[in-house]
């Protein structure tokens, strides 16, 4: 058990080392979220009606949910590369914990997501975001919720990476599947503004539940059942996708 933790840390450190060395990845975790915030606040923001709130206050919880959900894409990329380049074989031939490869990936994603959060809050505050009617406890609960959701998505990306024939495919599958889902939700606009059909879809979309839960914790919107439902969604995703990723890993590795 202690060796699993030690091996996970060794591999997480390895995963993190590549980020500053690859400008496209560094951009994905820093400049891309900044760009999204500025684009929505200043380009679309004026045309979007969010009754009772400045758009930046409405937007930030949603855009944080969206950015963190994608934080795990580097896991899809990295795992797909490791399989292709034979590194998985090297790891499996070493007297190390076999769980550490996936654990190291998902753990390093959490740290990367923390980096994204710092960047997002910095640009959010600069663009005029404020916490409204909230307590330190609620702010922290919101952060925990967002990071847990990011962790759940890391397992989805792990599965995508292990199913992809190349890192490029892993990347495009991830974005094609998840990107539209974030738009058909209350991430950027209130679901109530959407036409029938799409509105019902958006209301059932977990991205709506997560965004609305974080809003209720950070800007004082009515909580309804969103907060605990959000945790249920996270748990459900982890319970479904972590075992699938582990099973797929075993299958891919033992070829």
């Amino acid at each position, binding site marked *: 058990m202690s*060796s699993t933790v030690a091996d996970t840390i060794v591999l997480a450190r390895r995963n993190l080392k590549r980020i500053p*060395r690859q400008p496209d990845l560094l951009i994905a975790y820093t400049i891309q979220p900044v760009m999204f915030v500025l684009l929505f606040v200043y380009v679309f923001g004026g045309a979007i009606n969010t009754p009772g709130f400045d758009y930046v206050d409405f937007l930030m919880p949603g855009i944080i949910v969206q950015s963190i959900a994608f934080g795990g894409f580097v896991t899809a990329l990295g795992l797909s590369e490791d399989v292709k*380049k*034979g*590194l998985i074989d090297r790891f499996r*031939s*070493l007297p*190390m914990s076999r769980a550490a490869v996936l654990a190291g990936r998902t753990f390093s994603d959490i740290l990367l997501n923390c980096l994204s959060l710092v960047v997002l809050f910095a640009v959010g505050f600069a663009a005029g975001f404020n916490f409204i009617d909230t307590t330190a406890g609620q702010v922290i609960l919101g952060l925990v919720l967002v990071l847990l959701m990011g962790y759940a998505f890391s397992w989805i990306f792990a599965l995508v990476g292990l199913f992809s024939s190349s890192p490029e495919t892993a990347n495009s599958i991830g974005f094609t599947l998840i990107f539209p889902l974030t738009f058909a939700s209350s991430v950027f606009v209130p679901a109530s503004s959407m036409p029938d059909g799409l509105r019902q879809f958006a209301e059932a979309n977990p991205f709506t539940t997560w965004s609305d839960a974080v809003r209720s914790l950070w800007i004082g919107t009515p909580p309804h059942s969103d907060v605990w439902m959000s945790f249920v969604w996270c748990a459900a995703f982890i319970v479904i996708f972590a075992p699938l990723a582990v099973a797929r890993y075993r299958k891919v590795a033992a*070829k």
Partner: protein
Amino acid sequence: MTDDAIVVEGLVKSYGNVRALCGVDFAAPPGSVLGLLGPNGAGKTTAVRILTTLLAPDGGSARVAGLDVVEDAAALRAKIGLAGQYAAVDENLTGFENLEMVGELYHMPRAEARARADELLEQFDLVDAAKRPAKTYSGGMRRRLDLAAALVYRPPVLFLDEPTTGLDPRSRLSMWETIESRTEEGSTVLLTTQYLEEADRLADRIVVIDHGNVIAEGTSDELKDRVGGERLEVVLEDVADGDRAVEALAAICQDPPSLEGQRVIVPVRHRSGVIADAVLRLNGAGVGIDDIVVHRPTLDDVFLHLTGHRAEEDPEEQTEEQTEEVAA
């Protein structure tokens, strides 16, 4: 038998309907280099994957360093090193970081892992590149780093899966020298290769496999003897001298020499001195020599003799590797 570092008995492995290994037996005593020779798809890599615990066999048994590859897999991993044709290094890490990481995954203390990384970079002539990401390395440098990673923990048994496939001749030669200096340190090595010259040069004993079966086993010389040992070939200046040449050379061989046009073929047992001896005898008989050579059968001849086909390489894989070389 139980003292052997590698013992494989009746190993069977299938992928769906394809039988990769159909009951393979071989063994390697401690400190020896065993060459597993065969064309692509012969089952070499499957055997290595089973012996390094990456793959479970369907039948038969295998013990490495006294440990069963299935039952004692976890303990066995601390006693083996694996390097292969895919050069499994992390391209985003530097040479030093790659070796440090592998050391830490062997649960060496960090300071020791770092010292060992420095030592190996020195031995493998990678000191200048130690701080550069491995993606900037040439194909030959990557293979050296990969081999260094396999040696971090000084494993008693080393598996090299086609260590020079796709390398240019100069890198191949330097890789051979590296492997030779490693094997002098007393590790047992199992080397797979489709290059006959490579098995000839590096291996003490050679197991030839084809379509998942062992088709021959022995030292390089034993295998060559199976296709008839060495031949002295003399090309005569004048065809008319043929009979006199055969007569003059009959004394230096057991089997009678044969005559093919202006070429006399003489089966010989011992290479040393045979050319000088033949030249003297032919001179004495007044036979003019155009050319004279001792031909050793290559392992290619052995393979052809055993299987009826050459140990050719898969042209597709070759092209891919070469492209990779250019890109690297």
